[in-house]
């Protein structure tokens, strides 16, 4: 033991190191999220949190479940590849957030330091409650012009008009039927249009 005769201070120092390392391990255990490092240098649980975001566009399959007549008509016309929600907007519409309690003084103070995340709006679901929740019918004057207003930047083969010259301000659906926009499909009622097979 003569080697360690005067080494007491070294042992104390080593003990301090061990203690500090243990404290580090304990702190690390509580500070680092459980899933950190599962797939890489990030929190794997974040993937699930991001995937849990509510979807608002339901996809055309959801619409076609009930509106198969429209889907049929559309599939024969020029708008076959335009999805329902491209014109009608997202199926799930956000409810206006109402009845939020007014923040008290403390909450407002905290909000100064840590701004609160905006509340996720509740979603109205026309697909679940078709009678009471009706999507807004788009105004064709605005809607059609978004795509079909003439511009040199648009592909040459794409049908384009100068709305003022083309219709004198009349709404497009006076002549065109949006689901199958050829002219005779518009003039005829739905059944005749279907029989005629729409217009290319």
């Amino acid at each position, binding site marked *: 033991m003569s080697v360690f005769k005067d080494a007491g201070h070294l042992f104390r120092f080593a003990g301090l190191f061990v203690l500090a390392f243990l404290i580090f391990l304990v702190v690390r255990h509580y500070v680092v999220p459980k899933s950190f490092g599962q797939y890489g240098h990030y929190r794997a649980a974040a993937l699930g949190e991001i995937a849990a975001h509510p979807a608002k566009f339901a996809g055309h399959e959801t619409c076609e479940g009930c509106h198969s007549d429209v889907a049929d008509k559309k599939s024969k016309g020029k708008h076959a590849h335009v999805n329902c929600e491209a014109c009608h907007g997202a199926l799930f519409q956000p409810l206006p957030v109402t009845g939020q309690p007014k923040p008290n003084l403390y909450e407002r103070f905290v909000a100064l330091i840590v*701004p609160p995340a905006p509340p996720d709006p509740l979603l109205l679901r026309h697909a679940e409650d078709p009678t009471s929740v009706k999507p807004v019918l788009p105004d064709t004057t605005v809607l059609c012009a978004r795509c079909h207003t003439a*511009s040199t930047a648009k592909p040459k083969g794409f049908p384009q008009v100068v709305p003022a010259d083309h219709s004198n301000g009349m709404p497009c659906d006076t002549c065109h039927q949006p689901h199958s926009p050829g002219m005779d499909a518009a003039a005829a009622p739905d059944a005749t249009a279907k029989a005629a097979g729409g217009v290319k």
Partner: protein
Amino acid sequence: MNLNRRQMLILLPAAAIAWKAVLAGTPEEAPNYTMSDHWWGMLIDIPKCIGCGNCVRACQTENNVPDGYFRTWVERYHVSDWEMKNPQDIMTNPLTDPQVISPDGGKEGFPVDTDASGKYFFVPKMCNHCADSPCTQVCPVGATFVAPDGVVLVDQKYCLGCAYCVQACPYGCRYIHPEKRVADKCTLCYHRITKGLTTACCEACPTGARQLVDLKNPKDPIHEFLKTHSVQVLKPQMATGAKVLYNGLDGSVR
């Protein structure tokens, strides 16, 4: 507590199953979705884009993107005849000096072009979901990352809002969310693609100019498309491994 052999034989497998369930964590993701089966990207077919702004509006609705900020936006490029006839220096070269506009991200369309000469075209832009992304490399806390399925995501609970990634992105696709004060960007609609839906911008695109592609899926039409078309990514010289593939991309696009 005294356990006999019979009780032990029942208890041990039960404990093993329970432990397995604990280890599995919280599988909030779609149960039928395997990350390793996918490698997501997007195909943007420029000759099909009509600049209607449907994608920008759809993205804003789907992802609660604040006004004035964009996860995707549409630019209109104009290369004039004069530039094409005078390519002498960098300021007049048609490849280096196009005029680009994107009013409100192209959300409400574009003004009528006054100069009819030259060529005009629309270029939708978004996060390129780079396989070797500069934005994820600079994050000091590991709050942004390339997911195992190739989507670049932000962990908004972990993000400090230091904005290093906003500066690092060569495509300008990130911003600091004005209310949450953390980095925000396109998630490639991760909440949709993990459930088998396409992204909101692809769903809303009326001409099919945008298509979600899964480069790991052998049945995806992208493979046939790549065989028959000349496809380019933005800023290939940055070697970011961008996965937003552009068909018909003009050399002037940056």
